[in-house]
């Protein structure tokens, strides 16, 4: 699979309009001219490289943290829209597996899923252009597992149509990856709720882009944490408030060391008619050594006057006074640093609503931190 073929294949399909507009139209895989601030250059990525850096570097690639969860909660389901799934009880999960006929144009009708949690393991599919539709008021939690089972050689495109008054929670876990490119588009219809949490650890090159288009009275939450990565970690979000009375809240935490680079760029865009918008965005980095880098560009672009928008950004090391307090209670600096790093991303963990997913995330963080 290569990028050109992927692009060729998803033409004329229902597709992430953001991906279409910003990537297909100008194909940054070919040239980097239109690339945003500090982006890793897509045209420099060799998707066909056969090396598996993760294995080469002998990284800890365990994912035992998933086991308990898989055993106790998960049932295998077949991803066909003709079957209505209903597995045992509340807080049960379904793992979508099996063949998808046309991965370039697969539409998931989430309304058919009666489980609280739906797991999608990206490693099962070579190339992905998925559309998700959801109309129910009942909250559904989706776990997207993006790990190293195979080497993805193409970008992954997701489009979520979150219809009126529906409520989706999404947890993306990216770990043990050589390269991963994920593009999200969320179309939030009036009064819908999306809570997206992204955990990124132990990767070489990751780039996530999130595009949100908000109707009126929507709630949009994005929380991200990246830590223990080795190469480049890019996150780009564009939150467009198109109609009045919506709120968006985005926090991004990065722990950067061992020569890694983290780039965060986020824009809150408020349309002229989107009065009463409440927008908040925070990016924080813990920069632990001098060979690593943290680049941040939080942006506000505002055309409506009755709004409350703010952003903040900080970059610093672990607070020395905090370390001292731990030491003064007999706790070693090493352990203290570990606890403080966890504390730093605790806010992201707290944003996950589903208890099982919170536990799962906690395990993942402990595994890689």
């Amino acid at each position, binding site marked *: 699979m290569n990028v050109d073929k992927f692009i060729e294949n998803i033409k004329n399909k229902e597709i992430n309009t953001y991906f279409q507009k910003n990537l297909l139209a100008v194909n940054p895989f070919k040239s980097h001219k239109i690339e945003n*601030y*500090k982006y890793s250059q897509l045209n420099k990525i060799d998707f066909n490289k056969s090396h598996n850096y993760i294995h080469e570097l002998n990284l800890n690639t365990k994912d035992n943290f998933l086991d308990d969860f898989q055993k106790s909660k998960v049932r295998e389901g077949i991803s066909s829209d003709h079957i209505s799934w209903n597995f045992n009880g509340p807080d049960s999960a379904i793992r979508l597996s099996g063949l998808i006929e046309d991965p370039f144009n697969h539409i998931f009708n989430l309304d058919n899923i009666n489980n609280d949690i739906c797991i999608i393991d990206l490693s099962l599919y070579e190339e992905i252009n998925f559309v998700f539709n959801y109309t129910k008021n009942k909250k559904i939690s989706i776990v997207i597992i993006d790990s190293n089972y195979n080497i993805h050689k193409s970008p992954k495109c997701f489009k979520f149509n979150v219809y009126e008054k529906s409520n989706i929670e999404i947890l993306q876990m990216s770990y043990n990856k050589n390269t991963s490119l994920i593009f999200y588009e969320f179309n939030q219809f009036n009064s819908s709720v999306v809570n997206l949490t992204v955990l990124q650890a132990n990767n070489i090159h990751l780039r996530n882009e999130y595009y949100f288009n908000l109707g009126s009275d929507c709630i949009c939450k994005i929380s991200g944490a990246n830590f223990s990565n080795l190469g480049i970690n890019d996150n780009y979000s564009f939150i467009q408030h198109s109609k009045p009375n919506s709120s968006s809240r985005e926090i991004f935490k990065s722990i950067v060391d061992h020569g890694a680079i983290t780039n965060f760029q986020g824009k809150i865009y408020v349309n*002229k008619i989107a*009065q009463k918008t409440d927008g908040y965005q925070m990016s924080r*980095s813990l*920069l*632990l*050594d*001098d*060979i*690593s*880098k*943290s*680049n*941040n*560009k*939080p*942006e*506000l*672009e*505002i*055309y*409506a*006057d*009755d*709004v*409350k*928008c*703010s*952003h*903040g*950004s*900080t*970059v*610093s*090391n672990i607070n020395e006074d905090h370390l001292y307090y731990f030491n003064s209670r007999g706790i070693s600096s090493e352990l203290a640093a570990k606890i403080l790093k966890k504390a730093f991303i605790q806010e992201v963990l707290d944003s996950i609503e589903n208890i099982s997913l919170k536990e799962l995330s906690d395990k993942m963080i402990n595994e890689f931190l």
Partner: protein
Amino acid sequence: MVASEQTIKQVNKLGSSDYKYGFSSDIESIQAPKGLNEEVVRFISKQKNEPEWMLEWRLKAFSVFNKLKKPDWAKLNFPEIDFQDYYYYSAPKSMKDKPKSLDEIDPEILKTYEKLGIPIQEQKILSGVAVDVVLDSVSIATTYKKQLSELGIIFCPISEAIQEHPDLIKKYLGSVIPVSDHSFAALNSAVFTDGSFVYIPENVRCPVELSTYFRINAINTGQFERTLIIANKNSYVSYLEGCTAPMRDENQLHAANVELIALDNAEIKYSTVQNWYPGDKEGKGGIYNFVTKRGACRGVNSKISWTQVETGSAITWKYPSCILQGDNSKGEFYSVAITNNFQQADTGTKMIHIGKNTSSKIISKGISAGNASNTYRGLVKIQPSATNARNFTQCDSLLIGNECGAHTVPYIESSNSGAQVEHEATTSKINEDQLFYCQQRGLSNDEAIGLIVNGFCKEVLQHLPMEFAVEAQKLVSINLEGSVG
């Protein structure tokens, strides 16, 4: 609550009639042929009687300009500038043989400055401000010179410094803003006409504020001034700059370069009140203001502080910056940018931390009304060498009405784990409760909005020297006069 209907109407009503510096003066002038080419560069150099090395420097800059693309990162919308449509040199005829004293200055020129309220007459100088006055392309009068020279301070037009202090010019001109930095920097280097030169010797605290007033008078004239300030070890200087222009339907071009150099323990405070003609309420005319201001804190413990109040110009493109090279050096940027009608501003700063223990502070207040667009754009960069660097940034934007835009675009880049960078920004509307409160206490709407906006800007305005602070406060109010119903 949204700004009331009335508020918005009032903002729209606000027209060019409020620009009280919009008169033009009937002063006979010598001009370069219209357009931009090597001949014009030579013409300027010749008019200034410049030495050969200076002409060469200009010509080199001009060839660089021809190769560079116009910078395109700003969020500004304006038609392609036709550089051939401007005059690059205009000097009052009466200045051909420079007046020896103020008595010899063309009374018409003096009248111009009187109208602007600028004290170039000796008696007014007693107020404690030394003034250099630049009309179109030449420096008209520099006051207080003698007293300053007794301290070893040089304060003169840069054209004079090129003649009399070539060593300093050769050493420092273009050393902070390389000619090839971007096309406006190159353009300025090729065709700059005048501006101020300041040199403060070691261990001298300049006892008065140094000040330059810039005025564009002649039609279709570009003004390209060049300012160079050098503060030697343990010295201090505070420098003020004001600008105005007549009301004209065409867009006039202004592209200045300002370079500051602070050596060990030196401090430079640079304040600007920019009130170029902003254009009329339909967005016709007004100054295109492309300014490159950059200071280098070369020495240990040096400090450069920029304060700006930007109320004029149709287009403002300006990022006064600090390169913090010396250990423990400090950079500050305090800014108020007010845009109304169809004004557009894209302004901010760059703080480049290179030395250890360097610190920087950025306070920016943007106010946008009418159909205006107001963008803060700022870079904080911490180099791997800048251990223990600190930055704090606070950007607040205020929107008045629903046809304008306010944008905040910070770039934060850190590569040192011992550094701390903190950025905060907010955008909100003018507080209608405060407005109501003031009105209830009998203030007119204009007074109320002036009061509130001044409060919003206070943190910045208080960094202006006294003489300027009062003027700036008035300007802030005037610029938004009629903003609230």
